[in-house]
């Protein structure tokens, strides 16, 4: 990092914005459309395209962790599995998308898996998926954001996006996460 020899104020000297800025949805929709096209041009296959979108989402997510915890929670992070999930569903979703996510469910078959559901993610609002690519869900970008936030706050997980009741994000935590959480409960 080139901290020395800089005569103008760096970005860290500026006060943190309150994050209340708003931009037209059309702008975002068109920008996201270009993001998808850019990724598509770089990809040969559908999974590759999804991976690229997922990866870009993860990079966005990483940057949101500190920003939101500092601004919304005075820098205090979550230690319990359920609290971090609720944080994502409520606070986080509300700041980022203006509303809470619709539903959070625990899988019946696998205690490591949770589902976060949203009828209409804003990224999908203006996307019509071509018939030959019907499995493509561009909300995989948002799945990437969630994955980065969970993993970056100490709850390593894999998050994917699926077409089910709108869009369902499948959150699969590593076993150690649930194990640790159970241990904390016991105490």
């Amino acid at each position, binding site marked *: 990092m080139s901290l020395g020899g800089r005569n103008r104020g760096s970005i860290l000297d500026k006060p943190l914005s309150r994050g209340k800025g708003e*931009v037209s949805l059309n702008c975002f929709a068109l*920008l996201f459309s270009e993001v998808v096209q850019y990724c598509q041009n770089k990809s040969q296959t559908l999974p590759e395209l999804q991976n690229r979108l997922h990866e870009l989402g993860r990079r*966005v997510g990483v940057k949101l962790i500190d920003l939101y915890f500092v601004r919304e929670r005075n820098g205090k992070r979550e230690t319990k599995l359920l609290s971090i999930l609720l944080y994502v569903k409520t606070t986080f979703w509300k700041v980022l998308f203006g509303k809470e996510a619709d539903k959070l469910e625990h899988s019946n078959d696998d205690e490591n898996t949770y589902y976060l559901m949203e009828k209409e993610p804003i990224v999908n609002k203006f996307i019509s998926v071509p018939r030959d690519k019907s499995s493509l869900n561009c909300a995989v970008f948002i799945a990437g954001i969630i994955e980065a936030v969970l993993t970056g706050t100490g709850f390593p997980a894999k998050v994917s996006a699926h077409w089910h009741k709108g869009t369902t994000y499948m959150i699969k935590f590593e076993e150690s996460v649930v194990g640790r959480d159970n241990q904390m409960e016991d105490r």
Partner: protein
Amino acid sequence: MSRSTRFDTKKVNSELVTLTYGTLVAQMVKDLDTAEDVNKQLERIGYNMGIRLIEDFLSRTGTGRCLDLKDTADKILSAFRLYLGVQPNVVNWSGAGDEFSLILESNPLTELVELPDELKQLKYCNMICGVIRGALEMVQLDVQSWIVQDQLKGDQNTEIRVKFIRRLEDAMPAGED
């Protein structure tokens, strides 16, 4: 008019846009060889957005034809307000009245952004130039647009220059008068 009010409420958090744009730029910097290539690609992306955005602008504002370039500059201002939520100033008109500058004191695209020293050639906001060019091309105005000053490079404001080249003639489809 009820339609326009409904559409006006559709906003998104500007940080989502900032970071999405930022990761896209970062990805391009990785994928492409030179900053110059990234600048071109960003302009291209803006152009693609502009040619679609103009329709939304026309239908939302119900605006008519511009009488002169001053009129056009005013419309561009209202588009900035509408879509990015910022209010630039129009200054530095050329003597012939065919060139002007848009001065942005703040810019949602560059919030949270810092350019590393090795990317001083990068025109981070080149997308905006592309949007202007694309949108105006769809209303038969051929313009050039480029960045003169850049807050990311230590300038006080961001200055975008727009130069009128020529009016494009309507190309009528064959068989129609």
